[in-house]
């Protein structure tokens, strides 16, 4: 046999929430490869398993499915792959059907459906420890006999909890024996499920009192919403408070690296490219990694614990009214840190239409990169005075800018809902799994994967854009007798002057237009660029903002300041977000649509702001 050379292919499949991914982590450890299936953005996870007997397997973690009668892209992929119809993927040699032992009523039906495919298979009776604790008695041998396929108990979250499964896989792989096929329709499958349950499972009268008690509070119309608000508040605090020291370290690190490289590489274009272009540019993006990791640690923990679907339950009605779904909530929340992890988090939305709507409005959430710009402009144009009995006017404006983003997102998704030709009903049908304690190892593996995805993007498209931007900013070089800042002679400078014509109705002068160009890489760079344009030599971004304050508050009219603030609510010019949209949707058209509509909104809103402000005498 060829087993010594080509590894046998295992596929894990099962209902969502059956603990399949934890079992996959248990089997393959960190030897995993995460990518997408060809042509679609469904995550494909493959890992290696070396059994104690020396056999080697390629393990595929298929998307969760309730049925092989697909209702979503995930389920269609699972079905096609099991049958060996998926282009570019060989049919698996052995199917491992994972079921939650505490939820056999739902999961056994799927096992029967899988058995009908007539492929060699093993049933992994997962979470068998939880079933025991709840007093659910399962006669494994009887179940194995009735099903006619091997049944093994597993505890995915316990060390060696899958040892028996690996032994069974070895045995089945050595003598593959397809189950006998008896085709049955839907009603028969249910009747058969019930017969199996009656014959092999002893259920206590009531289970899951913990779930009942928790749901009574966490889904309560008042306390539930209150708890959700507290949880969100804690996440925000953590994202800003815990990540800051690490971000400072990264900034100091990239600064030191830049200085070192600046000293080692001889003066000239190469020095500037490495120091100002690559190190400063990539450093400016990597600095967000700690925030992204803290955020994802919370999201993964909430997801594992079973709370996330509860949050979706609480907010579904509100979000459905605006053309989104309860599941859109977490991606949009993430987007307040940065739209990129937010767009990545839309993978949990199965419905493609809801997912697209969520991706398109995610950039409207005020990301942390906009804060430096807001801080500069508010400091320059909004007086720090107390209004309406105790509120700080500057704080109110900042709050207003956040709210404007949220309301715009709801309005945009509402308009998209009205315009859509597809008016068919898209169901919620969301399973609320049992509460469980998150497993640290699964959290760490999940975080590691997110970090890799982010860093790969930084290494690829963001790297290329950074270099391109550096070229625009530095070529052609200023002549020897230059009187204006060097940026004025560069390609970016020329583009800025040309753009000034387009942006004149918005009240933007040519200096602002130039600053918008490097702001393409990351919005907060706009502040540093304004400093460059005004020929300031400032040690760092904070110092630049300090020095800029008097200049722009004297030099610009209030109308211009307000107009620029409004511009940044919609701020379409973050290339990294565009790249994320392109990657997650696999469509240039969607990316162009997102960039285009954000630009149009930004232009119109700023135009309105400027013209109204001028008419009121603020010009």
């Amino acid at each position, binding site marked *: 046999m060829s087993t010594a050379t080509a590894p046998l292919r295992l596929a894990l499949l099962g209902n969502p929430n059956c603990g399949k991914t934890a079992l996959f982590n248990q089997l393959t450890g960190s030897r995993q490869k995460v990518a997408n299936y060809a042509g679609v953005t469904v995550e494909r996870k493959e890992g290696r398993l070396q059994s104690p007997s020396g056999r080697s397997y390629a393990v595929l973690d298929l998307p969760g499915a*309730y*049925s092989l*009668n697909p*209702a979503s892209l995930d389920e269609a992929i699972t079905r096609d792959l099991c049958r060996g119809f998926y282009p570019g993927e060989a049919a698996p040699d052995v199917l491992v059907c994972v079921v939650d032992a*505490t*939820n056999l*009523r*739902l999961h056994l*039906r799927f096992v029967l459906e899988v058995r009908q495919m007539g492929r060699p298979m093993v049933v992994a009776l997962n979470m068998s420890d939880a079933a025991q604790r709840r007093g659910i008695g399962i006669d494994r041998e009887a179940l194995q006999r009735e099903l006619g396929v091997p049944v093994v108990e597993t505890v995915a979250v316990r060390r060696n909890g899958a040892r028996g499964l690996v032994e069974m896989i070895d045995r089945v792989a050595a003598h593959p024996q397809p189950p006998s096929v008896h085709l049955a329709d*839907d*009603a028969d499958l*249910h009747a058969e499920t*019930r017969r199996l349950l009656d014959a092999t499972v002893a*259920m206590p009268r009531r*289970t*899951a009192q913990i*779930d*009942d008690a928790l*749901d*009574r509070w966490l*889904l*309560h*119309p*008042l306390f*539930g*919403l209150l708890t959700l608000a507290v949880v969100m508040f804690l996440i925000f605090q953590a994202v800003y408070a815990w990540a800051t020291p690490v971000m400072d370290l990264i900034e100091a690190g990239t600064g030191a690296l830049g200085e070192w490289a600046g000293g080692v590489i001889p003066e000239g274009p190469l020095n500037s490219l490495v120091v100002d272009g690559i190190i400063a540019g990539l450093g400016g993006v990597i600095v967000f990694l700690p925030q992204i990791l803290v955020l994802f640690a919370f999201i993964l923990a909430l997801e594992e614990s079973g709370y996330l*679907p509860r949050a*979706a*339950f*609480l907010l*579904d*009605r*509100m979000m*459905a009214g605006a053309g989104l779904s*309860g599941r859109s909530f977490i991606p949009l929340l993430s987007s307040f840190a940065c739209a990129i992890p937010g767009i990545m988090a839309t993978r949990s939305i199965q419905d493609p239409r809801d997912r697209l709507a969520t991706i398109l409005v995610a950039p409207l959430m005020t990301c942390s990169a906009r804060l430096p710009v807001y801080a500069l402009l508010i400091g320059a144009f909004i007086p720090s005075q107390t209004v309406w009995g105790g509120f700080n006017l500057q704080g109110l404006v900042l709050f207003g800018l956040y709210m404007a983003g949220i309301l715009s997102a709801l309005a945009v998704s509402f308009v998209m809902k009205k315009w859509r030709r597809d008016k068919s*009903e898209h*169901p*919620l*049908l*969301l*399973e*609320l*799994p049992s509460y469980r304690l998150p497993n640290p190892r699964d959290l760490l593996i999940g975080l590691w994967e997110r970090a890799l995805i982010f860093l790969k993007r930084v290494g690829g498209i963001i790297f290329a854009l950074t270099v391109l931007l550096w070229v625009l900013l530095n070529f052609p070089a200023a002549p020897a007798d230059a009187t204006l800042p060097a940026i004025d002679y560069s390609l970016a400078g020329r583009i800025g002057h040309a753009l000034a014509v387009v942006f004149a109705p918005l009240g933007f002068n040519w200096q602002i237009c130039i600053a918008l160009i490097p702001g393409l890489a990351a919005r907060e760079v706009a502040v540093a660029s304004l400093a460059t344009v005004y020929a300031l030599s400032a040690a760092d971004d904070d110092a630049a903002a300090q020095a800029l304050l008097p200049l722009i508050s004297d030099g610009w009219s209030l109308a211009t300041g307000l107009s620029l603030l409004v511009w940044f609510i919609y701020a379409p010019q973050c290339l990294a977000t565009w790249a994320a949209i392109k990657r997650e949707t696999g469509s240039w058209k969607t990316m162009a649509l997102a960039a285009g509509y954000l630009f149009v909104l930004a232009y119109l809103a700023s135009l309105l702001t400027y013209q109204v402000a001028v008419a009121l005498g603020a010009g």
Partner: protein
Amino acid sequence: MTLTDLPLRTPVVVQSVRETAHNDPIARRLRELGFVAGEPVEVMAKGPFGAEPLLVRVGYTRFALRRSEAARVQVAPATEDAA
């Protein structure tokens, strides 16, 4: 009587799932999720806005269903011997 007419925490059993269109995919999915004749179900909670969605327990599994989805599920009071 459908799931939407039901007060909170009233155990009933499923009679049938009604199709609102020919080959209704949502009705089919509801059946796959275990909403089939004879299964005990119970509405456990209602969403905070407009009593939507409903949290429905079927067997030992909980699902959030929007009212339009829950309205497809016809139910009848649980008889003593079935409980």
